[in-house]
């Protein structure tokens, strides 16, 4: 009886990484889909309104400018352990690595959306010269560090036109 118990414990212990990765897959998918859904509904709420964010280097309208300021938004996102593992396996064969796509696309979308919201809320008419930068963080030179994160920064110049048309 004790022998079977011991064997069972050993099996459980050996299967622990499997459970961790399965959990990462399950909860990672749930969590990430929730984030994407939230972003979708937030973007829907702004549908139909003009998008003031552009990467033009000059203001699009030749009107008098009242004020301008630098605006920025940033976020750091990371893929789940499961996504990192499948990405690592896929890396051996080369080709498309879909597992990283989800969070990278999310990161960029969310900062551009937040920049748009920030511009609208602060009463700016336009954001020009948008730049999006990507940085890899917390990649340790040695050791088996599980954390891999990407940081996205979006910044641009927000412009408020004078109320009087001229």
């Amino acid at each position, binding site marked *: 009886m004790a022998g079977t118990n011991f064997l069972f414990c050993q099996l459980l212990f050996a299967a622990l990484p499997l459970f961790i990765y399965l959990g990462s897959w399950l909860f990672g998918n749930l969590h990430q889909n929730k984030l994407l859904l939230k972003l979708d509904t937030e973007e829907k709420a702004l549908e139909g309104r003009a998008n003031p964010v552009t990467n033009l280097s000059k203001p699009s309208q030749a009107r008098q400018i009242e004020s301008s300021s630098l605006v920025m938004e940033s976020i*750091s996102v990371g893929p789940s352990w499961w996504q990192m593992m499948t990405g690592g396996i896929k890396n051996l064969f080369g080709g498309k690595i879909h597992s990283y796509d989800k969070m990278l696309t999310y990161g960029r979308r969310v900062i551009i959306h937040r920049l748009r919201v920030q511009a609208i809320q602060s009463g700016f008419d336009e954001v020009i010269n948008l730049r999006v930068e990507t940085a890899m963080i*917390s990649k340790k030179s040695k050791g088996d560090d599980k*954390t891999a994160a990407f940081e996205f920064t979006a910044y641009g110049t927000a412009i408020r036109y004078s109320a009087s048309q001229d």
Partner: protein
Amino acid sequence: MSQGMHLSNTETVPGKLITASFGLVQGSTVRAKNVFKDIGAGLKNMVGGELKAYTELLQEARNEALQRMMMDAQGRGANAIVNVRFATSAVAGGAAELFAYGTAVTVE
């Protein structure tokens, strides 16, 4: 933010005329989060998504780099910085260097 300092990442401050240029100004800072937050972020990595600890860390650091750049510009008697750019690099595990640079000018 320093009072009265115009920042812009375009070639000019929109709607204003540049009267003098003071050359390149820069500010940088290296920041690291404490080990507990690193562990927290590592666990959060299990499901992926936003890692708030790093988002905050980098936002604080970027603001500090901006502050230092603006101090530099103020020291030279400028009242605006144009063509502001940011750069991020990981100098060591869990630490990041944030760098802001631009051209200090005076606008009317």
